[in-house]
């Protein structure tokens, strides 16, 4: 926990300055999680504000301060899921939908002087975003929370409100699907 229970209790009872402190304590971590869940840096703050907005108006439903973090993660997952669904509906032309050559041309056109490390990181982000874009939003979020955020099964149980066995099955299936997508992409990755 990044804050003590007493602060959460105060925020729950309507203390706006306590709520402010809670947001300030968690915003960086939550924005990082959102960035990895949605893969679009330009929309991270918007989705993050949506998470804290939902938190503000649902804090009174929180049973105890002990379950605050899973609650916040659940709100984060729901907001990311809503965002990804909206994006899919919009059919926007995304950078990750373009070929690597197009991306490089776009980068060159932007005149960015990025160093080798930044180029490598960008390529990794695009590879993973591309892979995650090939599976459902549910699988994407679950895998990101487990594999990238490093949440334990116990933590995921609290977020998803399902038992460990059901989670293991869902994780196994999601891994299989992403592995299949990775295998299909492997010639590109290797080349």
């Amino acid at each position, binding site marked *: 926990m990044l804050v003590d229970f007493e602060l959460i209790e105060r925020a729950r009872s309507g203390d706006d300055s306590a709520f*402010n402190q809670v*947001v*300030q304590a968690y*915003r*960086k*971590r939550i*924005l*990082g999680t959102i*960035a*990895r869940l949605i893969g679009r*840096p330009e929309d*991270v*703050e918007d989705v*993050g*504000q949506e998470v*804290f*907005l939902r938190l*503000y*108006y649902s804090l009174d439903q929180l049973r105890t301060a002990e379950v605050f973090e899973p609650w916040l993660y659940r709100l984060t997952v729901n907001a990311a899921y809503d965002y990804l669904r909206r994006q899919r509906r919009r059919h926007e032309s995304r950078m990750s939908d373009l070929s690597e050559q197009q991306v490089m041309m776009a980068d060159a056109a932007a005149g960015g002087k990025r160093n080798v490390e930044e180029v*490598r*990181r*960008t390529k*990794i*982000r695009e*590879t*993973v975003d591309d892979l995650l874009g090939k599976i459902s939003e549910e699988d994407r979020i679950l895998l990101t929370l487990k*594999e*990238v*955020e*490093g949440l334990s099964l116990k933590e995921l149980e609290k977020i998803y409100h399902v038992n460990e066995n059901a989670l293991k099955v869902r994780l196994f299936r999601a891994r299989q699907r*992403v*592995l299949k997508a*990775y*295998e299909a992409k*492997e010639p590109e990755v290797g080349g």
Partner: protein
Amino acid sequence: MDRMKDRLDALWVEYREATPDPEVGPNFMPQLWHKIEARRVETTSVFRRLAKICVMATVALALVMSAVLIPHNNNDEVFYSGTYVDALAAEHSNDYVDVLGAADLR
């Protein structure tokens, strides 16, 4: 297959490193509070609108009911101007006379 799994696991780790937690912009908190306030106003105006709709519906219902029921009440007054016994007597006035007449014959 195992090689692919290992590569994928390594890719997750690299992805985590390649996407550090972003710096929070200076407008994050002001914008958040602005959105909170906007939602509050929106919620209040929704309740206000609901209350207005309820009041208008009540008034409309009252008007309709008065328009429907008031003429009926007037008709009822005309319809029930006499009692049931009076109406019965008027219908069978001849029978009554016959009965009396028969009594006289005896």
